[in-house]
């Protein structure tokens, strides 16, 4: 893939919208930066179709990023449970907490 060279007009978009949303997906939802980037891009694709003109775009994007990030984490946890069940049947309990958010996992420890 080519490295992105941003035109001046897109630089503002990158710093004002893209990066803050990536940070939201990263630090609120525990995603790595690469997954967070993909989540935000997916949110942008949805916005083109679903975001109504005159609506609160910022709130909509934040909410959509939250939903997509949560779904991604749940998918990862399900995958981990399935892998444990099929590959290591005796280790299923180790991944039971994989779908807990970091705060809940910390409290349960």
């Amino acid at each position: 893939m080519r490295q992105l060279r941003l035109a001046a007009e897109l630089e503002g978009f990158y710093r004002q919208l893209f990066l803050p949303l990536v940070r939201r997906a990263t630090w609120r939802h525990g995603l790595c930066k690469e997954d967070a980037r993909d989540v935000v891009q997916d949110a942008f694709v949805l916005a083109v179709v679903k975001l109504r003109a005159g609506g609160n775009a910022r709130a909509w994007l934040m909410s959509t990023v939250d939903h997509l990030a949560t779904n991604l984490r749940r998918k990862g946890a399900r995958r981990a449970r399935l892998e444990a069940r099929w590959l290591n049947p005796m280790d299923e309990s180790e991944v039971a907490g994989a779908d807990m958010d970091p705060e809940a996992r910390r409290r349960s420890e």
Partner: protein
Amino acid sequence: MSTEQEHEVVPAIREWLAATSDVEIPPGMSREEARWRAREFLAAVVAGTVVPDQVEVDDDFTDILWASIEELNGKPLGRQTFDECDCFYQFVVALSVENDPFDERDEVLHRAARIGWRSAPGGLEAVLEARAATWKHGDERRHREVCESADQLTERIEALTRQQVLELPEIRETCARLVKLSNICPSMVASATVAMGTLLGSQDRRIG
């Protein structure tokens, strides 16, 4: 993001997607690097070797702030964590942040405060009990009622000015409320007291 900018978001998103469809978009500082830098940053904040004026709040630094929250959240509960959260909170409050479209600084502060209060001596319950105790002034229900009806005080005094005969119980009640509210909303009480004084000093009304 202003209202005008919000109207331009969808066209801007289209343009962005078209420009980034086959390129790798740098997502900013990695989690690992941000956590590593956050450990150093927190140590410097606590030691006082870095001050808010020295820091440029750019995207990388914002990642470090978020990573600092994760670092603080992983620390054991107790006085040391409480003090570290307090140092971090004071530092972030003092930062000069020019552009924060998603109110990230507020959220960082909120999370730092939660972690700190959780680590406070006695825990969060002790903090909440101390705050609830501010409502206890002998008669808690009465104090709460007076505070919650403070914005009706001006109307109450205006109603008195329309009366030709002022009843002593009403005057006493209104003055008692003014005294109670004097420490809570002093500016409102100051103007209301002037109105009350004018009313009571008026020669064309009978009291009692």
